[in-house]
Every structure is written in C-alpha cells, then in structure tokens.
C-alpha cells in the first residue's frame, strides 16, 4: 500500500539575524508526515516548534532545505502562490487566537473565504455553519472582546477549518485555556481531521495531550528533530 505524504521536509534549516550573530531556529530537519496522520510536535520554548509550523504554513521561508506540503514545493512558490496555498491548503490555529478585534465572529470566520474568492452569500452561510459546528451559533455577531477565551479559540478553529484545509497546523491551541475548554477545542479539531481526512500537526508541550490525541509524537530540541 502506497502512503501519500502530506508533509515532507528535507534538511530544513532556518536561521535568523545577520551573519555576525546568527540564531539557528531549525537545523536540518527532515520529516515525513503521511496524509491523515496526527502529529504532535513537542519541545520546550525556543526549540523551533513555532518556526517549523510557520514554515509549513507558508508564513515564512526556510534558509535552506526543501519542503513539500499538501503536494506543493513551498520553497519554490512565489509570494502570490504561497498566499493561495495559505488560503486553500492549510488552516492555522494560534495560541493567542489572532482574531481581528474590530470584526464580529462571523466576519472573522469569513476572512479566509474572502481571500479564497468565495462569493459573499455562500461565505456567510458557510461561516455561520462553521460557527454553529463549534457551538457558537448564537454568537455570530459578537466581537472577540465579547467572547470568552474558549469561545474566541473556537472562532479561531472555525476560521481555520472553514475552507476545509488538507493540513491543520495548531500552535499550542489550548495554551491559554482551562483544561475543560482545552478538551472541547481539541475535540473540535480532531472531529474535523477525522471527518475530512486532514493531516494535523499540533504543537504542544503537554505530553499527555500529545499521547492521547495524536498518532505520532515528534520532539524538537534546539532546532533539531529527535523523534
């Protein structure tokens, strides 16, 4: 049986700063993630987890090495193609929710569909459905400031999943939540992953959560992979 690879990195390296004082965030990371697999990325703060996630999400470019995500060679894509990749292929969830404060829950969820070119009427309907799916059907017109932390993260989850991405990248999505809410949010993400056969890369430093919710645990230490 041939297993399709959703994420592949080959000797991926990311360096910050100038030549005088370089900071190496990732050192020659090579990783294969088959389609549909749920991977937990564990490591201490500064180990390079978020950097790897940003590279996989097309938000940043590697210093060297190659990577293929959802069938696209990201290091070869133009800025415009990268933007299209972010709009269609990946859904990113952040620890700090990253919702636009001046927009309602519905408008925040609509945002990825705007850049994906979805017509307004369909967008509204799908954003509404996505929010209902995360239990916020009654909170469509609320702004982030009017929502609790758990509700805000559920809006962020709805936003990340609304375009039905092949890859879900979650950067400590439960870091700012109490354990009960955290479980609810993780359950929502896992439901989507199972339902759509998506691939999940979950950054966390919660070992228990990693073991319970993912198929595979990958560790990063000082930018190096130690599975």
């Amino acid at each position, binding site marked *: 049986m041939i297993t399709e690879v959703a994420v592949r990195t080959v000797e991926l390296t990311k360096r910050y700063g100038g030549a005088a004082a370089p900071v190496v965030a990732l050192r020659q990371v090579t990783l294969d993630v088959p389609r549909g697999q749920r991977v937990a990325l564990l490591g201490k703060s500064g180990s390079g987890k978020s950097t790897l996630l940003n590279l996989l*999400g097309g938000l940043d470019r590697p210093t060297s090495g190659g990577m293929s995500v959802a069938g696209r060679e990201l290091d070869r894509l133009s800025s415009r193609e990268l*933007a299209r990749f*972010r*709009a269609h292929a990946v859904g990113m969830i952040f620890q700090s929710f*990253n919702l636009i404060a001046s927009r309602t829950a519905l408008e925040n969820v609509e945002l990825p569909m*705007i850049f994906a070119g979805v017509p307004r009427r369909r967008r509204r309907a799908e954003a509404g459905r996505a929010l209902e799916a995360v239990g916020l059907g009654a909170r469509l017109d609320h702004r982030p400031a009017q929502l609790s932390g758990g509700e805000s993260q559920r809006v962020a989850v709805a936003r990340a999943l609304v*375009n039905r991405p092949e890859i879900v990248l979650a950067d400590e999505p439960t870091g700012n939540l109490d354990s009960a809410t955290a479980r609810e949010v993780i359950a929502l993400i896992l439901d989507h992953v199972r339902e759509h056969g998506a691939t999940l890369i979950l950054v966390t430093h919660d070992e228990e959560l990693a073991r319970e919710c993912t198929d595979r645990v990958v560790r990063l230490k000082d930018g190096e992979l130690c599975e």
Partner: protein
Amino acid sequence: MRVADMFALPVVALWQQKSRTVLTTLGVVFGAFVLAASLAINHGVQQTIDRESRRGDVLRRIDVRPRWGGQGPAKPAQEIVVKGKMSEAKRRRIHEALVAKQEAEKPGVFLTPEMLQKLAGLEHVQVVEPEASQFGEARFEDNREGLQINSARPDEKPYPQRIVAGRFFNDPAERGAVVSEVLLYRWGIADDEAVENVLGKKIRIAIKSYVQKPGLNVYLVKPVGVPASFDEGGLLSKVREQLPGVIDQLDLTPDERELLRQAAASKSADEEDEPEEYVEEYPIVGVLREPSADEEKERRWWESLGGSKGVVLPYQTAANLFFRVRANRERGVYNATLFIDREENVKSVFEQVRKLGLTGTAALEIIERERLIWSLVFGAMTCVATVAMLVAALGIANTMLMSVLERTREIGIMKAVGAAGRHVLFIFLVEGALIGLTGGGLGLLVAWALSSPAETWVRSLVNEEMRRNLSGAIFVFPPWLLATVMLFAVIVTTLAAVYPARRAATTDPVAALRHE
C-alpha cells in the same frame, strides 16, 4: 479575492475608524473645495468676460484715430548729431530725446475721406464707420436748435429698439434723419398724432464751416467747458473775419501787430470761397425715445456730449455732411471704427492700420490683457488649491501610516489566512482613493452650495460698482470640472496612500502576528 471584496474591506476598515476617517476626509474636502471654487470662478469669469466683451461685436472692432503730428519732415535718426564734450551715456540720452522730438515733428496722418477709403480696402475689413458726430443746428418748420448731430449704424444697438414712431435706418448712406421725441416736444409737437405726422417731413441740418479753419481763430469756452452755441459760433466767425481790419486799433507793439497780421493772413487760398455754413435737408424717418437705464450703459461715450435729445443721421450721411467743410476734409474725423470679418483677423488688420501711421485701440487686445491678468490670478488660486490638497495628502499619508502600524497584527492575520501582498496593497490604496472620492465629492458639494450666495454677492458688487447687470453665472460647474476635481482628489489621496500601502503589503506575517 473578488473585486467587490476588494472595495468592501477598505470601506469596513474606514467605517471602523470613523473619527480618523472624518478628520482625514475634512482635509481633502477643504482642498477639493478650494480647487473646485477656483476652477468654477475661473471658468465663469472667462465666460463672463467673453460674453460681456462680445456684446455688440466689440471684439471684432478696431477704433482708429489719427496721429497728430508736427511740421515735418523728420530728420533720420542717424543724421542727428549731439555736439559737445560729454559722457557717452549723456550723449545717448540726449540723442534719444532729440530723435523722439523729431518723431513728434513728423507730419500727422489723418482720417480723411481718402484714408477712410484706404482702410475700407484693407483685407478682412467689412465696414469702416467714421465717427462724424458734430455740432450743428436743426431747423424744422419755424423751430431751430443748436445740438449734437449724432451718427449711427443702421443695426447699432440700442437705437432700433428705441424707435417709437417710424423706423430706424436701412442703409448707412440713406438720406434720412431720426429725431428725439424730447426735441419734438420742446418744439411743441407733443401729441402722439402730431409726432406721427412729423414722419416724412423734412428737417434741415446746418453746420458751420468756421471750425478748425487754418489761420487765426476765435473760440469761446464757457466756464464749465461748454462750447459756444450755434449762434455764438456764427458770431465768433464774424469776429474772426473782422480781426485783420482792427489789428491797428489794438494796444500792441508794431512787432506784435506784424506778427498778428501774418497769423491772420495765413488762410488757405480758397477759403474765401467757402460758405459760412452748409445746410442739408433730410426726411424724418423715425422718432426716438430716450434710452432706459440699461440702454444708457450701451451708449457710446460721445453721445453724452449733446445727449441723444437731438438728431441722428446714418453714419455715411453724417460723414458726407461733415466732409463738406474743407477743414474737416483736411483734418478728417477724430475716430473711425473698423469692423473686421473675424476675431482672429483683428490683430493683422490692426498691424496694417499702424503701418498706415494711424493709432487706435482694439478691444480684443484689452480683453486679452484682462484674460492674461485673470489667468495669472487663476494660476495663483490653483496653486493655493494644490497646496491645500497636498497638505491634505500629507495628512492622509501620515494617518494611513499610523493606521498601518496600528493594524500590523490585523495585516499579519489577513496574510496568515490567505491574503497576498497585492491584496493588502490594494486594500490600503482603495482606502486612500475612497477618502479622495468622498472628500472630493463633499468639497464639490460645499463649493456648489456656497457658490449661490457668493454669486449673489459678486453680482451686487458689480451692479453697485459698475451699474451693470451681468448675464450668465459667475461660478460655473461644467461636467469636466466635476470630473477634474474628483480625479485630482482621488489621484492625490491614492498617491498619498502608496507608501503606507507598500509598507503594509511587505509586512512580514510572522513578525506581524507577534506584534502587540
């Protein structure tokens, strides 16, 4: 991203920052208002100048005057030598002064019948109207009155509309006269029927030949500058004739007597043959009422000399009478108006007139000077408007830059969920353009709204100062003006947004997402 969303996102962003948007837009409103008002008044004033100056074909007219001269002939400049030991600068100054004096000594060029014919023969000249208004005496039945005999063109406004009985002239050389109803009233012809009965009857016009005769003349000027009456003029003519005979009785030295005798003797040889007065008979073809206040403004300056309460002759008929006097034939008329076929030929004809040695005035030249002055004023106003708009643009650039900084995280989020750099760039550019569009529109609206009271004020000012009612609007808003102001406002504000938009577009999403 769909086009509708490219405009919807900026609208939402502007709406969410209402106070900032309003303040920024106010700057554009002011700039657009000044620009619109400046363009509107410039367009309106240019139109008004054209409209007012085209009343009565004034732009196609050249008023030609004789050049009064000296005894001549003038010495060529190179033959004038300044003698004596002096600096070169002084020699040059004196030489220039002597040359100028020689120029003034050149024989005069007069608007004689021959010269008028020459003018009529110039290319593009349609009509030559000699101004042959003169002082004379009107005699009708037992009535006689010294008055100004005016001349006019058959189509000259506002004469035809002032006719109350009969008609105005059909031809410039028609043998006919139009008389004032006031003159008839003074002569006791008051009833409407009596006025009607005057039509077709003959009026006799007499002019004295003593005016401007060469040699010794006797003049009477009354304290307020009023010239001698017709009878007084006749009397003075008799005194002039008798003067040579009484020179010996005057209290003068022998030399002074001799000088006076020579002066009195310097008559032209055939002067003796000239009758004292010339009288012509013309049928009365029409009766004129006095001009209304508005018509008064259309009147020609010389009409005020004798008022219009007199007699009017067609200009050629009046000139024929005028030129019967020998002195008038030699010295010509004081003014002749040339009517040119088209405005663009006025300058070339005027050039030819100057070459003939005559002087004059073309309204077109004056109007062009007025246009130039107004264009300079307009240029200055436009500069002020442009500066106002540029200041507004700086404000926009600053505000949008602040906005980009404040919305860094939002930009990062948009990029994280799929916005490309060009989307972000476009969003900010559209924000700038929308501010320009709104500000430009409101500026136009304010300019249009204020133009109404301003128009009333300017009109009252013109009426008060010049006793003139202007036709047409002074503030004009043609479609091109609306488009220009809107386009200018949108371009300026969009350009002002370029730098902030580029900064936003090139924002690193990872750094932006970390931005607090």
